């Protein structure tokens, strides 16, 4: 205690700061940084969890790039991204824009749109899975049949399964994006709109020349945030295709499901680790590209 008392205020601050940070630093080192390094290390090894770890250099990566299943999965992952992100962006902007212009029962409407965000992806995946069942079980097909429209094969078709799984994923995220968009819309100063009104500018011009340019930071945030979500899609796919993981002919399998199966069904740890490194690089490149493109514009 005497030693502490003789310290200057600045030195005391240093002591306090590091004692506050001791546990967190240990945590981040052991639970974040060490595993990251370990994952990269394992990706260069061959290991089935029980046998010996053997150094194999780039073999896992070569195997991965030569694997047609990987390219299928890689493509699926990007289909989720390329449909999911623009679609949810447009729909959520459209709803937020209009919701922002209504005051009558505003809170109630906002609640309706936000509610799905509070649900668990697993529970809702099962609900939607039920919706997609063929007649007489599934809600959608029952609905279609009352109007005499032919049945749609949702989850067992190689073409329909992926969009069918994407739908609940988009649905669940809309509420969050709408709320963020509305906050972004509110942050635009009213004086801009007033000036535009005095100049007699049309609603469309106001939308394209004022609203959307000023919303850019919000749009960047939502694009990056939702892209990361779609690239890492797993809960919905896993739960809507149990029994036939990845859907018919792997038509819905995303990268994360492939990682899960390689690691925890085939116990091919090295191969799975290589896939996680690829996932990491994909996320990194996509986010950086989006930031660069959207910020520059």
């Amino acid at each position, binding site marked *: 205690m005497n030693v502490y008392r003789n310290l200057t205020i*600045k030195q005391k601050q240093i002591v306090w700061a*590091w004692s506050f940070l001791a546990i967190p630093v240990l945590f981040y080192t052991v639970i974040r940084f060490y595993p990251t390094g370990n994952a990269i290390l394992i990706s260069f090894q061959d290991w089935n969890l029980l046998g010996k770890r053997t150094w194999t250099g780039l073999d896992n990566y070569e195997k991965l790039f030569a694997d047609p299943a990987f390219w299928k999965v890689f493509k699926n992952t990007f289909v989720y991204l390329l449909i999911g992100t623009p679609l949810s962006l447009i729909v959520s902007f459209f709803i937020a824009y*209009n919701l922002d212009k209504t005051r009558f*029962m505003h809170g109630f409407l906002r609640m309706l749109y936000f509610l799905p965000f509070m649900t668990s992806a697993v529970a809702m995946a099962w609900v939607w899975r039920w919706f997609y069942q063929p007649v007489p079980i599934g809600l959608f097909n029952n*609905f279609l049949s009352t109007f005499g429209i032919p049945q749609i094969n949702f989850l067992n078709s190689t073409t329909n399964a992926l969009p069918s799984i994407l739908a609940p994923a988009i649905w669940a995220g809309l509420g969050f994006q709408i709320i963020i968009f509305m906050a972004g819309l509110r942050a635009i100063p009213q004086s801009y709109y007033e000036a535009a009104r005095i100049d007699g500018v049309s609603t469309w011009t106001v939308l394209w020349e004022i609203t959307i340019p000023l919303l850019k930071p919000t749009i960047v945030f939502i694009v990056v945030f939702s892209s990361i979500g779609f690239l890492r899609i797993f*809960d919905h796919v896993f739960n809507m295709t149990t029994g036939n993981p990845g859907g018919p002919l792997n038509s819905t399998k995303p990268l994360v499901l492939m990682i899960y199966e390689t*690691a925890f069904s085939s116990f091919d740890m090295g191969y799975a680790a290589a896939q996680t490194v690829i996932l990491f690089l994909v996320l990194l490149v996509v986010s950086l590209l989006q930031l660069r493109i959207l910020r520059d514009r």
Partner: protein
Amino acid sequence: MAIAEEIRPTTDALLKTTAPKRPANMGQIIRWGLLFLGGILMIMPIVYMISTSLKWPHEIYNLKLIPDEPTIENYTFVLQDGRFFWWFLNSIVIAVITTLCNVLFDSLVGYTLCKFRFPGRYIIFIAILSTLMIPTEMLVIPWYLMSQQFGWLDTYWGIMFPGLMTAFGTFLMKQFFETVPNDFIEAARIDGLNELQIWWTVAMPLVKPALAALAIFVFLGNWTAFIWPLIVTNSVEMYTLPVGLSSFGDEADVAWELIMTGAAISTIPTLIVFLIFQRFIIRGVVMAGLKG
């Protein structure tokens, strides 16, 4: 305590609209009607889930929203089985402990990075920031190996340890501690409080809205977390609700009314919490989204 009051109106203002109070012309009435229809469509999956969980098996195939003979038989059946009780308990315990841990440590680290000047501050800041770039999926294999080595598989600790602190929470809190004036801290220091007391009694009460926002995000995230609990648990009693529901759904096969009951059990608690603290939660989401 003026700061907390100051933060609140700004985020509140972001949620208010200046549109006319009542729909005045035809265009606005149509807009309102369409938004209302869309909103009803949005909650349909939740409504159908609850409605089906109250139906007898022979009724689930019709599209009626209100069952002819409503029953809670499905709930009694599912709860009597006992597993859902355990899964519910596991999920609660894990989500609550993780949330407390995050609120405590993320704010402590955020506060330290914000209010202290010490060697290594910038490095720590960048190091924690960089962990945001690492996807969970990359870490699950090493975490699994660690858990296996130390006997953490199939334990609460095993499920919880990866999420006890988050970089997201740390940055959220750091942002909010910026709004706490340094004068307050200096004044407390002159009053003879030590740094731990200053953090806990002076700074923490000023960022309560942010703490609430963080708590909501962490709780919801852990309540719905799936991939890691799926990997780390083996025995049925250790499953969390999402993992349990996933295995239950597989096992129940075509008993959709039971699956919907299970889904409802894992969804209704968060919905109730949301309905009670609606304004609060939406404000929290805005704060976390804009500042985090």
